């Protein structure tokens, strides 16, 4: 039995296979419409997340399966003090697979160690968010045609942004990927990403504070939100949140085929005027997210179509 806790749990070859299945799903959704009939996914969301939860639920429903779960810790037995280990033992009796989001880092790992069904990490604190990474990789591969030989700019909250950490972890495995890390000094990537992931894998990277300066170099711009819930201090959040706003003027500096990705939800870091630019692909990303989660459910349930 396999779990997905970290984007590195799958080899590059396995990711390729997964993305091939997702691509086939996007072309022939009917072929997959009933292949999870009788199967259930439990969505165990200890903190709110409309997008990721709905994406998992849509993925299972598209495969003909059904869904159960909870969408906040308050509505789960965690409110009564139940441990993650006990919850997953109970859920293992109800469902065939589960997706877990938890504010505490490592909670899905604890679940996987006590589970008799596959566990998917749907985001744990500021740590990992592997299915967002699969979505990001799928979007880049589908729209750019490759995952190697690219210069990617990651902009915004690189300190707490788990999608950024997961994406860097995944992309260092491809050849000739250059990283430009654009953030205020206070929100730079954590040391372990810089030292062990980037330097450790001999990846080329630079850290800058101005988005405009590097726009012409980028093949991909990955924007992130400065997340209010990651700050301990409201004043600091307000000071930082408007630092890096992508607008039509900055887009003029970019290559004609550069892609703008965003894990969503956005607040104001991408002006609405950018939405109509064909290079803005963050809403297409959402659709890719459903396809790749469908492919993932099939893989973890070992269902061949």
């Amino acid at each position, binding site marked *: 039995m396999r779990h997905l806790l970290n984007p590195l749990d799958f080899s590059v070859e396995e990711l390729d296979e997964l993305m091939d299945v997702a691509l086939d799903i996007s072309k022939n959704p009917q072929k997959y419409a009933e292949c999870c009939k009788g199967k259930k996914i439990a969505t165990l969301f200890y903190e709110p997340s409309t997008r990721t939860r709905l994406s998992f639920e849509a993925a299972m429903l598209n495969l003909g399966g059904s869904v159960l779960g909870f969408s906040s810790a308050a509505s789960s037995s965690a409110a009564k003090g139940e*441990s*993650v*280990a006990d919850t997953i033992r109970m859920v293992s009796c109800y469902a065939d697979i589960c997706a877990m989001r*938890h*504010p*505490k*880092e*490592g*909670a899905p*790992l*604890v679940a996987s160690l006590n589970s008799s069904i596959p566990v998917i990490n749907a985001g*744990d*604190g*500021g*740590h990992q968010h592997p299915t967002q990474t699969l979505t990001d990789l799928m979007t880049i591969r589908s729209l750019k045609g490759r995952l190697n030989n690219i210069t990617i700019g990651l902009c915004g909250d690189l300190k707490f942004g788990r999608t950024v950490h997961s994406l860097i972890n995944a992309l260092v495995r491809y050849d000739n990927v250059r990283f430009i890390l654009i953030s205020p000094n206070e929100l730079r990537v954590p*040391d*372990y990403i810089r030292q*062990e992931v980037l330097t450790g894998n001999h990846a080329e990277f630079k850290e800058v504070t101005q988005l405009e300066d590097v726009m012409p170099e980028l093949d991909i711009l990955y924007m992130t939100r400065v997340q209010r819930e990651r700050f301990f201090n409201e004043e600091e959040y307000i000071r930082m949140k408007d630092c890096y706003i992508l607008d039509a003027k900055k887009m003029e500096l970019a290559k004609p085929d550069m892609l703008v990705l965003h894990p969503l939800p956005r607040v104001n870091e991408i002006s609405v005027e950018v939405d109509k630019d064909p290079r803005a692909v963050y809403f297409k990303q959402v659709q890719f997210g459903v396809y790749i989660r469908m492919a993932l459910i099939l893989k973890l349930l070992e269902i061949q179509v």
Partner: protein
Amino acid sequence: MLNVGKLNEGVVLDHIKAGKAMDIYRDLKLDKIDNCVAIIKNARSDKMGKKDIIKIETSIDSIDLDILGFIDHNITVNIIKDGEIVGKKNLTLPKKIVNVIKCKNPRCITSIEQELEQVFVLTNEEDAVYRCMYCEEKYS
């Protein structure tokens, strides 16, 4: 100078940094064993000035050398038989440490679920970097 009797069979942990013997006593859970244990604090040492020594009347197999390696790999482990040193064990950094140190990351699952084992994994041998198995936070 204070004299502590010779060990006939057992293990002598020598060259412990002065003042650290009690920490090692606790980390090796020596309070849980019935055997004879002698702790010598602030013994004179040519090499270190002052050092601590622990003598334990037990077999080497009952000592967790991994924990010892993590605490201080410069400690000398002497194996005693018939009152003589018959061997020395080299200490290395353990790949995994369980329930010795605690994760300090307030966002880690171990911060709210205290019954979980505290597991740290060696991620960089050169710089002796240990990370929490759950949240990957570096131990410092």
